């Protein structure tokens, strides 16, 4: 299935994702972005899409995983 994933090698902690879609992304203590647990499938929601489009590092990706 398709999941939202923040590529840690790319994320530089701009926090755009969190500012735009705090229901889907959070920022850890070091300042890097992550997907809120259980929200990996929310990529069709308008806010989440806006966050993905506005990430300056293009660090937020949609990945295919094996699990159901």
């Amino acid at each position, binding site marked *: 299935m398709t999941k939202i994933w923040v590529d840690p090698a790319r994320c530089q902690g701009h926090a755009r994702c969190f500012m735009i879609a705090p229901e889907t992304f959070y920022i850890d203590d070091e300042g890097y972005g992550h997907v809120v647990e259980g929200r990996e499938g929310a990529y069709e929601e308008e806010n989440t899409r806006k966050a993905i489009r*506005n990430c300056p590092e293009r660090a937020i990706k949609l990945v295919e995983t094996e699990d159901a």
Partner: protein
Amino acid sequence: MSDNETLAEFDFHGKALDTIFDDYAQMHESKPVGRSSKYGGFWYICKSEDIFDAEQDPQTWSVGPSMLLPSFGTEMPLIPIDIDPPTHAGFRKLLLPMFTPMAINKLEPGMHSTAIELSDQVKSAFEDSDVVDVSALFARPYPTIIFSRLAGYPEQDWPLFDQWIDDIIYERTKSPEKAKAAGDDLIAYVQRLIDDGRAGKALEGITGELLNATIDGRPLTDDELVSYGYLLFLAGLDTTAWAIRSSLWYLARNKEAQALLRREPERIVDAAEEFLRTLSPVQAMARTAKQDTTVRGQEIKAGERVVLVFGAGNRDPEIYDNPNDIDITRENNRHLAFGGGIHRCLGSNLGRKELVISLEHFLATIPEFELAEEEPWHGVGSLRLRLTGGE
């Protein structure tokens, strides 16, 4: 002058900023990678994609000897912006937690109360006078106060700061000696704070945290602390003042946009992004090629200086519809105002919040305004406004 002759002397400081958006349009049209003879000669890169790639590739593009061209009036590399990997990561990591959204949120009550206070002062100034310089009364003092609180600089010292910034940032292309003298004053100031801290005086904010911080298991040296302090000072004060001033400059000339943001203040967040994209305080930053390389077909030799023109990337017609229109409702706004990659501006969360909160309170307090006379879009010089009597 033909297009390419203008670009052959491309500059991104001072007066050159008056017409720089025309230069950008020419670059995009005819010469996306080109050579300027200014500041000892450099290549400029203007396409968003090329700038993005360069920022993601610190192995090819060094930030040494300085990300600034010309450099500020110091011999020392500024930590962390003038430091390459692998040393860079540790220095940056120290600062990161101090600039996360959560850390910045703690400053929010003070950001609101200060914005309200300064807006009220602007309002009373308008009661006494038809024309008010809101740069001097609002755009400049606001970030000075917020940043000084965060950094832990004692309030009685704040009046010193703006002159140092003017001399270091704005005089350096005209009078390097003046910039150097101001830089020395600033360094001596930060050193004095450190000495006080080492002598046992409690230091607050970032200055205090850095004094107690360790890197590779050892405390920071005086030189490192001074370098951090110097950079944060220059990065934190003037850029935000510029962003606030240029946003107000735009709004003064666009009453519809002003009315929309007054009516629907929740739009200020997106509007602020658009101001940052189009009128950003950091129009360009420099790199040095570490090896021979090619950008868009142009060969660049090891050791040559290269300028990433963020401001031009932010107006790249391949990325944005109507790139030169300032559309405060624009939603797709992935821009380069804070740079990207490992040197991305650490203060972006702080800067964005200061910009949004200051505009909110300014618009809530000051009725419809316009420019009292033509002023440049850029810089932190005066911004004289008059009230229209509308709304």
